[in-house]
């Protein structure tokens, strides 16, 4: 579908598609006098021919496999949810059950907050971390914020041992001024400590001292200690719109 861009007088691509499905006299009249739209319709016919002859024979078996895999995955998810509900009722399983909560919960990135994105570099691969993302020793993290207005950012983490780590700006004494969406300078490498680690991004309209942030994290670790506390405590005592968080699950060696 390599045709010239449409002009303002051309029908939209969707209108052309609908014309193919159900001929529209107005579109037909336009196409008669429009080289671009005639070219689009010719290209569409060529794609149709190639799809029916070449793509369908490949696509249908792949789809059957994918649907079977999806059905298997759905069955596993249902089983896991059932186990989770049972586990929540059983104190002995509580720790394992809580480990699954971040995976089954809705994404917790705060759309109206600092808009934290965590990028994980594992070897040559770079991916965006999802809530509960499993990360390995040596993985490198980068952080991107998308605040609605200029703010001053700290990115820090808390692990199950209550360790507070300043991730960005690494070793900094003042927060990073963030004028708009973008990656923060620097990165953080993960060590071999296994277990959950919660990343907090704080971005306030005025610079907030690191000591205040650190104290809030240490207080959180005291109030909600251990792995369960890290997995379930996703708020610091700052305005909601100034913070965002993401849970990572660190694998051991």
């Amino acid at each position, binding site marked *: *579908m390599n045709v010239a*861009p*449409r002009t*303002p007088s*051309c029908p*939209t*691509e*969707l209108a052309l*598609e*609908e014309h*193919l*499905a159900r001929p529209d006299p107005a579109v037909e009249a336009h196409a008669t006098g429009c080289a671009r739209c005639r070219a689009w319709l010719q290209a*569409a016919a060529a*794609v*149709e021919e190639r*799809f*029916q002859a070449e*793509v*369908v024979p*490949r*696509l*249908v078996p*792949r*789809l*059957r496999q*994918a*649907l079977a895999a*999806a*059905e298997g995955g*759905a069955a596993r998810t249902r089983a896991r949810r059932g186990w989770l509900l049972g586990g929540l009722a059983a104190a002995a399983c509580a720790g394992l059950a809580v480990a699954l909560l971040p995976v089954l919960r809705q994404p917790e990135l705060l*759309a109206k907050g600092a*808009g934290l*994105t965590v*990028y994980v570099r594992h070897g040559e*691969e*770079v*991916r*965006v971390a999802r809530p509960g993302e499993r990360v390995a020793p040596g993985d490198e993290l980068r952080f*991107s914020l*998308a605040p609605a207005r200029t703010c001053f950012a700290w990115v820090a983490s808390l692990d199950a041992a209550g360790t507070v780590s300043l991730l960005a700006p690494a070793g900094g004494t003042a927060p990073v001024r963030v*004028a*708009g*969406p*973008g990656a923060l300078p620097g990165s953080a490498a993960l060590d071999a400590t296994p277990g959950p680690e919660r990343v907090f991004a704080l971005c306030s309209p005025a610079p907030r001292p690191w000591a205040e942030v650190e104290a809030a994290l240490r207080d959180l670790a005291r109030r909600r200690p251990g792995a369960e506390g890290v997995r379930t405590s996703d708020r610091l005592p700052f305005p909601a719109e100034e913070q965002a968080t993401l849970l990572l699950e660190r694998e051991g060696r």
Partner: protein
Amino acid sequence: MAWSPAELEAICRRLGPPILRRCLGILRREAEAEDAVQEVFVRLLTHADRIPPPVEQLRWCYTIATRVCLNRLRDSAARQEAPAPDVEEQAVPPAGPEWVASRQLTARVLSQVDEDDAAVAWLVLVDGHTQEEAGALLALSRKTIGKRLARFLDAARAILGVEVP
């Protein structure tokens, strides 16, 4: 719902061409577009109970294909896939909506906006739909479309450091 091989082939032959055209239009790469078609069909077929009446299926598929392809573009930015060697030289994109069609620039912006904002921007800025039409396709109000478009443009301005329409 379990699909028989014949049913599967029939729905592929009927809905596949417009989906492939949509994916080619956004992704511009045949192999990637074909993978996207498969993803669209998996979404369609695993939620068969939501498939609308035949007269509405084209628009429904078109919207799902748009979302799938924009997510793929965004993910390609996250994976730092195929970065353009001269991306820094592209700091001043061509004026007008054409810039949105540039994969590299688009991927950079999409990596910072959510799926709905991305779909709104593509439908309005690239496809040329009115905000009302985009709202109908995405099941969002005209007011929401306007807000999302403004948010997308703010993000684009901040990321690209240029004035965009």
